[in-house]
């Protein structure tokens, strides 16, 4: 009686799936670890993404900001004259001023005053590369007409988006004046604001009669074709030679914003701590699971060692089992995270994006945790005489 193919089997796999309940518990634990990591880095990157979305979509290679500038929304400005000086430097194509301010917005349902973030742009100059904004720039040329961020918190400002989608443009009260919401665009909440309004500069200064067009919050600098932003940034700094302003590339500007929220304001730090906690808790769970996996199999390993198998064989076995568990646990963990991302995004207005790089981070850290835990547990086997390990 010969059983063809019976000699081809994998001990690695057989051992892993033999006890279904143990396998299920291990996978649940590893999924949970993956979930913890993914959700924490998801929050972290959503906050950063949201906080820098306008910055990343500025249609200019360089920006000029006032020296004391803390974050996009901080109450600092610089003289427009300085920006005009930049316009004269060789290699610069044009400069554009950007104005912003927090302003009061009357909740359309309750009538309460709420703070919203207002940005004033030169309409028709494509200062932001957001497609919805570009498509509706003509609306901002009308004084008194604004675009409303559809990700603004509905609980805070009222059912603006629903109203607009239902009835079209309608009037709201901003800074005590009537303006018309003439369109929607997509931005999202930031650390600083629960909502955003976009308007042409003429509307902006109508709402803020005390503000001066001569005081700019952020200056956009567009370069001529082929100019290197890094070199130009240094050149402009040198020419302007002042302690009142700073010149940054767009990437530096984005990083400046992230640094402010992560380091100075320490808000981002909370999420980094969360992500590290997720990793540590995940590591402990995974270690427990894999350690138990090895300990439970020690007598069997001892038997195999008595047959003449080498330590290397067991290292390979445990390594493979650990990696298989991390892959199998990663899949449900990621699916579950995706669901949480979806609901968090819907509830908070943050863009929760389960990107490939986040998945890669979560998988790499899970796999590393799994392998380390497995190998740590293996030390039990390496040092011991087989006779010490039998039941």
């Amino acid at each position, binding site marked *: 009686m010969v059983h*063809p193919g019976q*000699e081809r089997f994998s*001990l690695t796999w057989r051992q892993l799936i033999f006890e279904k309940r143990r396998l299920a518990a291990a996978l649940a634990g590893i999924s949970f670890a993956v979930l913890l990591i993914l959700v924490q880095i998801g929050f972290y990157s959503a906050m950063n993404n949201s906080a820098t979305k306008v910055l990343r979509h500025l249609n200019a290679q360089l920006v000029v900001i006032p020296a004391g500038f803390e974050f996009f929304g901080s109450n600092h400005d610089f003289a427009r004259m300085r920006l005009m000086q930049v316009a004269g430097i060789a290699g610069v194509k044009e400069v554009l001023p950007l104005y912003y301010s927090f302003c009061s917005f009357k909740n359309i349902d309750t009538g309460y005053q709420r703070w919203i973030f207002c940005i004033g742009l030169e309409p028709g100059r494509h200062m932001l590369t957001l497609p919805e904004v570009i498509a509706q720039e003509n609306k901002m040329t009308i004084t008194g007409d604004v675009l409303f961020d559809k990700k603004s918190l509905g609980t805070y400002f009222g059912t603006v988006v629903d109203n607009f989608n239902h009835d079209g443009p309608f009037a709201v009260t901003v800074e005590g004046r009537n303006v018309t919401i003439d369109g929607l665009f997509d931005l999202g909440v930031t650390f600083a604001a629960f909502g955003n309004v976009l308007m042409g500069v003429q509307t902006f200064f109508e709402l803020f009669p005390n503000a001066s067009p001569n005081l700019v919050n952020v200056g956009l600098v567009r370069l001529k074709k082929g100019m290197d932003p890094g070199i130009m940034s240094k050149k402009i700094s040198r020419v302007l030679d002042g302690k009142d302003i700073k010149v940054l590339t767009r990437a530096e500007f984005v990083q400046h914003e992230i640094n402010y929220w992560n380091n100075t304001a320490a808000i981002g730090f909370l999420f980094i701590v969360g992500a590290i906690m997720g990793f540590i808790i995940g590591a402990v769970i995974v270690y427990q699971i894999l350690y138990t996996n090895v300990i439970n199999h020690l007598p069997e390993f001892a*038997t195999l060692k*008595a*047959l*003449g*198998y080498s330590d290397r064989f067991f290292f390979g076995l445990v390594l493979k089992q650990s990696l298989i568990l991390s892959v199998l646990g990663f899949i449900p963990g990621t699916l579950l995270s995706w669901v949480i991302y979806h609901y968090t995004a819907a509830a908070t207005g943050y863009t929760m994006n389960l990107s490939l790089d986040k998945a890669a981070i979560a998988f790499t850290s899970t796999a590393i945790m799994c392998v380390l835990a497995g190998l740590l547990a293996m030390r039990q086997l390496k040092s011991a005489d087989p006779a*010490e390990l039998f*039941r």
Partner: protein
Amino acid sequence: MNTPIIEFKDLSYCFGEGNLRRQVLFSLTGKINAGEVVIVTGPSGSGKTTFLTLIGALRSLQEGSVKVLGRELYGAPPKVLREVRRNIGFIFQLHNLIDALTAHQNLIMGLRLHPEIKSPSEAADNILNLVGLGDHVRKYPHQLSGGQRQRVAIARALVIRPKVILADEPTASLDGKTGRVVVEQLHDLATKQGSTVLLVTYDPRILDIADRVLALEDGRFVGMTIREAGRTGLL
């Protein structure tokens, strides 16, 4: 016939450290020749299992010398220990089969280290037939009775055609009748293969299968006949 396949000299062993240090084997010396069936017997705690695991390269030597198949085990590198283990068929007190593998697959695990045995699947089937488990080849250990499991363990030890078979209380978890059948099977198959057998037991009912009995008490050989002692080279 009189080539020694196992030789041990001044073999001592201690458990524990410091105040808890307890010597279990006292300077044992002896030989086991090719093809012999030797039983080591003695009360619980006499050191017989320790003795067996030292002979089988499953425990590092502390003092004295053990030569198995011409290889010195004292201070031997892992490679040599593996080599010796591969040439020994072990049968343990508890069956020590791999739970996640069928009877047949358990045998294959042993055969994977012996590429010289051609058509391993057939070899495994044959030996399982010989121990009367032809109908249970694809069963997992938990689907077998205690006696059947111990017979799988015997089949696993024999299938690699080892020169030496070491058995530690193979009847301990079996009832008297099953134990007898299992040991007789072991004896017959080992003899047919020409294997040397060293069997440790406290079960007096199976002593008669031995060519020679070594009695251990408190870590020393006792009560051997002069004839036996002469044959072991103790005199």
